[in-house]
């Protein structure tokens, strides 16, 4: 599903954020990407969304070499990838329902389909009751649920979550983690960048640890640290 081949990234200011990284993520995988800030974690996420291009190497997403994509094709890549961020990134002047519906309007979905899929998805993430609320009327956990609904409403095969629990208290964080696992069970490939040792240690999923632009560990059922 996602494959990096000898990817290096040097920023114009000389920072070498990625050094010859190769890795494979299979369809249906649940992968944690861990590493301290400045490790290259964010660069990896940005390159998967084609916000940044690698200096050398190939990145293949859903059988397409995205390093060769033209600017015009980038929106179509992003439709294959649902995204969730630490700061939720909901549209403040739209209701919960409209925020999720908006993701479908962007891909020019049928209105009938929108009316069917939005309530179903809101139910799936457990926020259906608050469909009329605006983002500022919701708690952080609720906002992240809406963001999750928006990320999956178009049935994208990949979900990228960049520190999705970073702004949440531990209890709410676990609720979001449970949802992410549910989404993964439905066949969506989940890539989650995180700092939270406890979550990574407990869930025992595949962990890719990046440090100083290099993959220093890629273990199938590891915790946050290298001890096991």
């Amino acid at each position: 599903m996602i494959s990096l081949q000898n990817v290096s990234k040097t920023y114009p200011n000389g920072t070498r954020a990625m050094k010859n990284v190769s890795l494979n993520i299979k369809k249906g995988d649940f992968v944690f990407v861990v590493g301290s800030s400045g490790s290259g974690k964010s660069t990896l996420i940005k390159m998967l969304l084609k916000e940044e291009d690698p200096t050398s190497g190939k990145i293949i997403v859903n059988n397409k070499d995205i390093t060769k994509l033209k600017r015009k094709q980038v929106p179509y890549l992003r439709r294959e990838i649902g995204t969730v961020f630490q700061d939720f990134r909901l549209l403040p002047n739209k209701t919960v329902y409209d925020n999720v519906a908006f993701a479908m309007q962007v891909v020019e979905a049928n209105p009938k389909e929108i009316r069917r899929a939005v309530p179903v998805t809101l139910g799936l993430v457990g926020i259906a009751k608050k469909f009329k609320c605006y983002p500022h009327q919701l708690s952080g956990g609720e906002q992240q649920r809406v963001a999750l609904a928006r990320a999956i409403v178009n049935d994208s095969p990949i979900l990228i979550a960049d520190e999705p629990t970073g702004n949440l208290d531990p209890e709410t964080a676990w609720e979001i983690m449970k949802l992410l696992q549910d989404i993964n069970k439905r066949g969506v490939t989940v890539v989650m960048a995180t700092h939270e040792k406890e979550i990574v240690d407990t869930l025992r999923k595949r962990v890719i640890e990046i440090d100083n632009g290099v993959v220093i560990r890629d273990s199938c059922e590891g915790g946050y640290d290298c001890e096991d």
Partner: protein
Amino acid sequence: MTVKIRTLRHLSKEGILGIWENRLMSLASIGTIVLCLIILGVSFTLASNVDYILSQIESNVGITAYIDDSVKEDEITTLKTKLEAIPNVSGVTYVSKDDAFLTFTDDSNLENIMKQFEKDNPLPASFEITMVDLEEQERVIESLEQYDELEISYFQAEAPMLVQLNDSIRYISMIIIISLILVGIILMSNTIKLTVYIRRREINIMKYIGATDWFIRAPFIIEGISIGLIGGIIPIFALWGAYSWVLKVVNSRFTVMIESIKLQSTADILSAFTPMSLIIGVGIGAIGSIISIRKHLKV
């Protein structure tokens, strides 16, 4: 296809909603465009009236060719046809000896003097020749000088001066209009830039969801065009009202003074200004919004 139309409708709604959501900025943009176009309208009205008046004066400034008394009556018609055939001549009017005499006796100051000549009219018959283009006067005169039976009299200095005045008025109003359009575009792009800036988070989110550039751009362009359209309509009505009032005042108070010179009618001014105002208004709106959003699409 139906999908596209539905999307377009959705985006138009977003764009028009945008005007209301940012009503203060929209008002500022509309005001800017209205101001630009009103100034443009005034300078256009002035320029086209000056042009119009000059063309009336131009058609009055002609060449007089006095006819030698030896030329017989029946030869005059042939001569007139020949003169009419000279390039750039727009009209030839024959003034007979009697006509010329009558013109002078009409003048009360000269009446007594002229009475003495009643029996032996000393005034020659003449042709009044008008030209299409005053600038080409020299050539017409060269042609006329070939006829020995004609004595030519014309305003040597006035003709080029009028042409020059006319040209400089055209250039100056052209410069004013072009700079106003540029100012309009800059102000418009700044206001839309501010709207874009206020909504940059929204644009960013849309990019992550996978919105195409056109999907993001369209509401802003529709917003810009609508603002430009409103800004283009208002000056038309303003100019309509103001110009008909000016015409009314001029016609009621100054008719005696400027009997022979007319101002352009309101219909003439409006039929030229309406498309100008609408096209420039919409153009400023569209170009301004396209310029200002370009930068924010690079995410």
